[in-house]
């Protein structure tokens, strides 16, 4: 073989290209990738069993070079996103995970309001001295049905405020997290405290969403049972507060409001099934397989 043809391609010495490729490969090989599961609204103490369920977590982490590099976050996301019990707790658990496992590449999987808490950390790196190190390790956030622009259902839950004010009635359970996810509140926070929405600076790392577009709750359809049948019956009712494109809790526009859209449910789910808000955190219709495959990238 002609040595010149072998090693010079497009004016570049192929040996250098090979060397660069090997170096890049060695960089990936030496990387230590981990995944963090960040739950949505709620005060979780066992999100592994109660929020995500073992099938989802174990199937996804199986895609890692080292499946032991995972953490399931348990924090109090009943609080405002900036609260020490919310983002402060999340930062603590992520920092411990990064340091104890020597994580150099962190993939974060969030669901629902967990996306807002994660986005708080990425948008406010100066709020807590632990944030910059976490951001530096993040390669991307896979935000499953994030409530980036809030939900009218939070407004509907809270609206009794007018009467609370005048009568002192407290109707329903109203955490600060629900209050925060009202549409007008998220509009204010997106415009002033969070990045990644239209017209605002981008987030420092990739934040991409999986969007649920519909709810399937027919009693004769076995697909309704994935994630819990009764939960989906309730979702069908609450969908009246939402647009025609929604997952029963969030409008598609809210799920797509921050970062970029990775995919919408029907384009990737088995049988073109939609993902209701409960199903987008469970091993339904191959979602876990897609996330598992993503662990190796």
């Amino acid at each position: 073989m002609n040595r010149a043809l072998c090693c010079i391609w497009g004016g570049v010495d192929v040996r250098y290209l090979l060397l660069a490729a090997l170096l890049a490969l060695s960089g990936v090989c030496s990387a230590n990738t981990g995944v963090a599961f960040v739950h949505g609204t709620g005060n979780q103490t066992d999100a592994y069993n109660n929020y995500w369920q073992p099938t989802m977590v174990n199937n996804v982490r199986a895609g890692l070079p080292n499946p032991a590099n995972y953490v399931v976050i348990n924090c109090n996301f009943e609080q405002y996103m900036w609260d020490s019990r919310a983002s402060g707790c999340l930062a603590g658990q992520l920092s411990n995970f990064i340091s104890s496992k020597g994580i150099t590449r962190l993939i974060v999987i969030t669901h629902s309001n967990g996306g807002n808490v994660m986005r708080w950390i990425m948008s406010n790196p100066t709020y807590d001295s632990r944030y910059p190190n976490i951001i530096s390790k993040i390669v991307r956030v896979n935000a499953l049905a994030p409530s980036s622009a809030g939900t009218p259902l939070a407004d509907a839950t809270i609206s009794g405020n007018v009467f609370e004010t005048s009568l002192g009635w407290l109707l329903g359970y109203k955490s600060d997290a629900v209050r925060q996810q009202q549409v007008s509140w998220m509009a204010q926070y997106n415009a002033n405290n969070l990045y990644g929405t239209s017209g605002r600076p981008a987030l420092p790392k990739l934040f991409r969403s999986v969007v649920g577009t519909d709810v399937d709750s027919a009693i004769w359809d076995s697909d309704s049972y994935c994630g819990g049948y009764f939960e989906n019956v309730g979702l069908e009712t609450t969908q009246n507060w939402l647009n025609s494109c929604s997952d029963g809790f969030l409008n598609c526009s809210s799920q797509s409001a921050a970062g970029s859209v990775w995919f919408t449910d029907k384009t990737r789910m088995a049988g073109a099934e939609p993902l209701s808000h409960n199903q987008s955190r469970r091993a339904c219709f191959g979602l876990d397989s897609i996330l598992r495959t993503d662990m190796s990238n």
Partner: protein
Amino acid sequence: MRKLLLVTLLSASCLAQAGNDNRLSSRNNDLISSRLVNIPVPAGQFERKAVSFSYALNPQNELSTSTPFTAESREFWMQTDGNELSKGLMIDTTAPGALIRISPATGAAAIVPGNMKLLRNGKAIDNAKAFSQQANTDQLQKAGMDVGNGTAIVKIADGLGEGRFQLMVPKASGRYLVHVFEPNSDITLQAKADRQNYLAGDQLVVNALLGKNEKAMAGTEISGLLVSPSGKSYDITFKNENGSLRAISKLPNEVVHQPGLWEVQVLAGASDGNLRIQRDARTVISIAQPTAKLNGEFRFNPQALSFSMPIQVGSSGRYELSGTLYATGRDGVARPVAQAAMANWFKQGKGVLNLNFDRANLPAGYGAPFELKFVELKDQTRMTQLESRESAARVGTRL
């Protein structure tokens, strides 16, 4: 090589001229305080270390000034009691498919959807035909709608159209809150504040409109409340100004210790023939106590692409300065290239915060002149915005 060196030196020399103190520029819509207050540090855990951060932006992603949120309501709320509900509560709707939610106050009997009856002109409608959907508390809570125990929702079947209905709950007792939501109605109440961020004592302007397709309904009655995060409320009085409803109020100086936003709640009603049309709308604003302010000067370091800004601190706390660097491309157009922020803990007095954009974040082909935009000073301890300048400074000259 010598030419490149010469250009680099000239460029550095030219840009360095901006190293002297300069005044920040301001525009009409900027938020700038002329006073300071000394208030206690709120309860909570706060970072005490200085933290700086910067990262590159994609110059092709345009940034814009955000506009205040416009609330648009197709719903209203009313109080009732068991006596009225057992006889039949009158509900006027403006479109088919209205949803009715009944929530019991403490001590009131729970509502079971199957026990609710719908009447029209005094005649009961068979439940199977009256409601197209029914949901109880458990189903709603599992769907993520955190309603109170004993709450139920029914949806009036589309085929029954709109107009006056009576909703009857035979065994109701105690007090109830009724929420009527008409997703298919074209009659809305819109409400919008003139800004997103205010300082205590500023003037609040709220514009509202009850009507259809931006056309106001005649004879609208309207009232409003400003509710602080602590729950304290202040009346807002609307006036009809050339057909538009507007409220102008001086914001209170209440020092709030709870986090959260202030709510502007607007309640409006009008008559359409025999029907009563009601709508309630809410939007939010931020009201800050002026705990710190920029002193209005800055120093630019062209080598480090760094802006240094003195601040005056009225109240101990953690303050963050952030901003976006615009650089000029080869086509002469300035675009956003980097974002930077710095925060630190300050006691009452003076301090300095820097925006270190880092030349490594500058994309190839971009350079001076630079513009510093969307500069914001925030109180991280009280979660308020203290100052914002859309276009704060222009520095450097293109050779």
